[in-house]
């Protein structure tokens, strides 16, 4: 671990000024978000910004009473969990093959999977829009699920593969001589052993799915398929203009569970974010 001893030539004052300064830069806007979420609408856009607003639960009431927030939430949760599930079902066998078998074209396939991550959503947006339109899936959470799964599949595969590479080969050899088939080894030995990696991959996929905007914008055009992020974008409330306090409050409410989950997997985060290139 980090040594506490002061290193010669390194000024502790400078260190804490820099780290503390950045911490303020991170947190002050967050407090500002919160203050917007908890103020009345009349104090949002004013000739002079109001720094000490009156406390109000206007936004809270509006979210739950004027908007079908539960439906948006349900759509988000279903689309995101469904997409993560699709990813795991597809990625785990693929990662296993890429991590453990020797076969022609293996490295090319691994790289192809990685390279889909580099594709800008805008490039494929038009064909995918038409594809879903032709399939009659526009404006459904099924379409969102499929798109989120596609966006995250490369990430998830690479993360899981990296964790699988760390498992000693001996373990599989032992299971094989003990009489287990390949798929049973995967299911009973490998998956339990890399559970932290799988969870990390799932959490990161979940965050990216929550963040996804462009496809959601194109696919979800009515509240039937609105997710939280779309609902935000549509808190423009017609003649009322953008309803910022509701946006801020929803953002905050969505942030809390994500924050807790991420803190729980903190140790694995750096490895997950680099698709396994860094071992945290």
């Amino acid at each position: 671990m980090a040594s506490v001893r002061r290193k010669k030539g390194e000024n502790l004052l400078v260190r804490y000024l820099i780290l503390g300064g950045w911490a303020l830069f991170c947190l002050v806007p967050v407090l500002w978000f919160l203050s917007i979420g908890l103020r009345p609408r009349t104090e949002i856009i004013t000739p002079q910004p109001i720094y000490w607003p009156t406390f109000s639960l206007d936004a809270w009431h509006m979210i739950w009473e004027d908007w079908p927030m539960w439906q948006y939430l349900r759509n988000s949760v279903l689309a995101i969990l469904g997409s993560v599930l699709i990813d795991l079902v597809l990625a785990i066998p693929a990662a296993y093959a890429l991590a453990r078998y020797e076969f022609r074209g293996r490295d090319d396939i691994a790289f192809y999977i990685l390279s889909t991550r580099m594709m800008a959503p805008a490039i494929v947006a038009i064909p995918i829009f038409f594809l879903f339109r032709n399939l009659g899936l526009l404006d459904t959470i099924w379409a969102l699920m499929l798109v989120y799964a596609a966006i995250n599949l490369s990430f998830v595969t690479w993360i899981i593969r990296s964790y699988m590479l760390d498992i000693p080969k001996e373990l599989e050899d032992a299971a094989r001589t003990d009489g287990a088939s390949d798929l049973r080894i995967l299911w009973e030995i490998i998956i339990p052993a890399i559970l932290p990696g799988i969870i990390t991959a799932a959490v990161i996929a979940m965050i990216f799915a929550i963040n996804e905007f462009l496809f959601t914008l194109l696919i979800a055009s009515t509240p039937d398929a609105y997710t939280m992020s779309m609902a935000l974008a549509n808190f423009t409330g017609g003649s009322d203009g953008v309803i910022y306090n509701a946006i801020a409050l929803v953002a905050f409410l969505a942030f809390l569970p994500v924050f807790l989950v991420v803190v729980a997997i903190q140790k694995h985060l750096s490895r997950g974010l680099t698709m396994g290139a860094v071992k945290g």
Partner: protein
Amino acid sequence: MARIELQNVEKRWGAVVGVRDVDLDIADEELVVFLGPSGCGKTTTMRMIAGLEDPSEGEIRMDGEVMNEVDARDRDVAMVFQGYALYPNMTIYENIRFPLRMRDVPKADQDRLIREAAAMVELEDYLDRKPGALSGGQRQRAALARAIVRKPQVFLMDEPLSNLDAKLRQAMRVQIKHLQRQLRITTVYVTHDQIEAMTLADRIVVMAGGSIQQIGTPDQIYRDPANTFVAGFIGSPPMNLIEGRVEGGTFSAPGISVPGLSHAEGRAVTLGVRPEDCHVAEGAAHLTGHVYGIEPTGDMTYLTVKAGDKLIEVKADRDFRADLDTPQGVTFDMDRLYLFAGESGERIR
């Protein structure tokens, strides 16, 4: 419970040859040790017997049945690994149960078999623990229990003791041999440690560079090494090997002169003599040099003499002492000299 035959077995990875032309017959209930330095092909040969590698050439048979195409999981072999390979997410009990579950042993029998196996390796009190909560020796025993629980036809052990400290290793060696005799299961044991090989084996297979150098009982291997490799690999410290020539019945090398030889007249040879067959000489000697090192161990004294640029190991009496760099003579036990051909290293005498 099974006889294992290897016939012309070869393993190649592209142009790299891992194992070449191995012919071997392992009798039922026999304990055979594959001995050799790392990279000699011993582990690969064992893995081919296990079915974890496919031979590129040749046949592997168990009880006469060709095994090449049979999956590892169907060969009814149990393997113990260097790193133990215990399943980290399962308790010791579940670890031992795993092979039984995979083979659809009736639930009713499972518990009894597990407890029997655990008792054999004195692990009854640790069944609820996860592998991470056990010491190295306990993990080793758990791995053994997992191997013996289903009474396989063949045991394969891949350097099972090399992660243990010296004391524990000796105790485990005894236990493994005892278990093997008790269960009467054909066993192949891979090691690079010649002491393990000598103490455990019914027969030793010495391997180097992918091929078998010699097959024999420990006594045969020790007394009649087939070539310089086997001679130099077995024994601790290993046999002294001195390159020189035989002229007029006398072997000579710098600082060394051994008369009275009736073999290999006029040829370049390697003379071999074990440290225990070398004796400290007062007067005339086969070898004269200087004391290079002296290591008393209590029960004996290892003496290293430098003759020419050659270092000769001598097992001397425990009371022997000498100062460094003083002149020292050594005589060889003439009945126990070995001669190897200079070029090929094959044994002449």
